């Protein structure tokens, strides 16, 4: 196994399981559709809430997508093979997370114009929303991968993991929606974007190592 063959296979598996990715996206759409229907379909309600709804739906979809990230590798024994492959486990994990991120985020971004239209998102803030998604979601994936790795090892402790992950997700959500709202009000929002970037870099440095440790602990 090499890093290259690993990442190739990751994409291949994602391609074969493209329904799983669609699954996450569909989940996203379901959340977005549920809220107007369940709460209030009028544009007075939806327009100011649109960015929040989109971000919440994104977080939920990512939680869904990430939760089972290592499950199958665990049951079919390939996780074990990764651990003893002699390659750097942290790097493998980083590659895997990146692949997942690309697979989920790109189609999500493609759907954004349509959903923004359906939720009556105010015109000016569309691009800011896209930017927050692009720099905000990698952190969610990186942090989430730690949780997913722990889930695999704890076997029954998925709850704990989500509980542990949520506090780390909150700042991302708050910075992101504040940035969009600042843009809507014409206030400066670059500072908030910088914060998002900082969270991203921090998790980029820490998360792969933590994930590798959790994975190693889980394969015995």
């Amino acid at each position, binding site marked *: 196994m090499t890093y290259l063959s690993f990442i190739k296979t990751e994409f291949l598996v994602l391609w074969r399981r493209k329904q799983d990715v669609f699954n996450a996206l569909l989940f996203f759409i379901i959340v977005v559709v549920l809220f*107007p229907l369940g709460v209030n379909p009028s544009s007075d309600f939806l327009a100011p809430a649109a960015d929040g709804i989109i971000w919440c739906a994104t977080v939920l979809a990512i939680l869904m997508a990430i939760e089972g990230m290592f499950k199958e590798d665990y049951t079919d024994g390939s996780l074990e093979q990764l651990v003893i492959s002699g390659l750097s486990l942290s790097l493998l994990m980083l590659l895997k997370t990146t692949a997942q991120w690309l697979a989920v985020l790109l189609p999500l971004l493609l759907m954004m114009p349509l959903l923004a239209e*359906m939720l009556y998102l105010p015109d000016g803030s569309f691009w800011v929303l896209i930017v927050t998604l692009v720099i905000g979601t990698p952190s969610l994936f990186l942090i989430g991968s730690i949780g997913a790795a722990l889930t695999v090892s704890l076997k029954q402790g998925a709850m704990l993991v989500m509980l542990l992950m949520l506090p780390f997700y909150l700042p991302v959500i708050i910075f992101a929606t504040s940035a969009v709202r600042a843009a809507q009000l014409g206030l400066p929002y670059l500072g908030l974007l910088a914060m998002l970037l900082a969270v991203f870099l921090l998790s980029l440095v820490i998360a792969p190592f933590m994930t590798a440790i959790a994975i190693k602990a889980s394969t015995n």
Partner: protein
Amino acid sequence: MSWTWFHKLGSPKWFFHWSKSLALPLFGFGCICLLFGLVWGVAFAPEDYQQGNSFRIIYIHVPAAILAQSCYLALGLSGLVFLVWQMKIAPIFIKAVAPVGAVMALMALVSGAIWGKPTWGTWWVWDARLTSVLVLFLLYMGIIALQNSLNDVTLANKAVAVISVVGLINLPIIKYSVEWWNTLHQGATFTLTEKPAMPAEMWVPLLISTIGLYCLVAGLALWRMQTEILIREHRSNWVKQEVMKDGL
């Protein structure tokens, strides 16, 4: 009353022969009716005093919406027939009709959305009827995808039948959503009990184009079923004779 026709209908071979010479006439008649109705509607029917000429979209919108629902009704019923009597023709019907129904639903959605812009001022509203047609479209897509992703024929037959049957429940929702939920969308034009409120010059072409679309879809469905029967029965002798004889 004799039930033999019912059992015969269940046999793909019998069905193939029975329907062979039916598809083209149906399709042709449908095309002519539809064309007639549409030309009448778009060029000769009087202008609506409220909506102006955008009202002419109705001659596509309503037939498509009606067909989208009728196709689904047929799907659900044949799913039921398959689950109860194991009739072989039923899953063939479902497989053949689902894509046609999806096209109808898409036509209803697109024409409705385009119609919405001049009359309601927006492409989309969260209205129950609109949403439920969207959902009907998704349901069709789901059935098609389910069909395609199962390579095991027996499993695919059952799975698709189950979903079609369960999906029947969506139809009353579309039908009554207009009454249940405050909505921008209009109520029914055609009912069995009352005369339409529109003038006859408006609704007669609508009726004609609806009938036309029905026949057109029926023709398409027969063709598609015949293809599917050929695929499924390709081991049997009669298919061999059929294919060699026609030399199509």
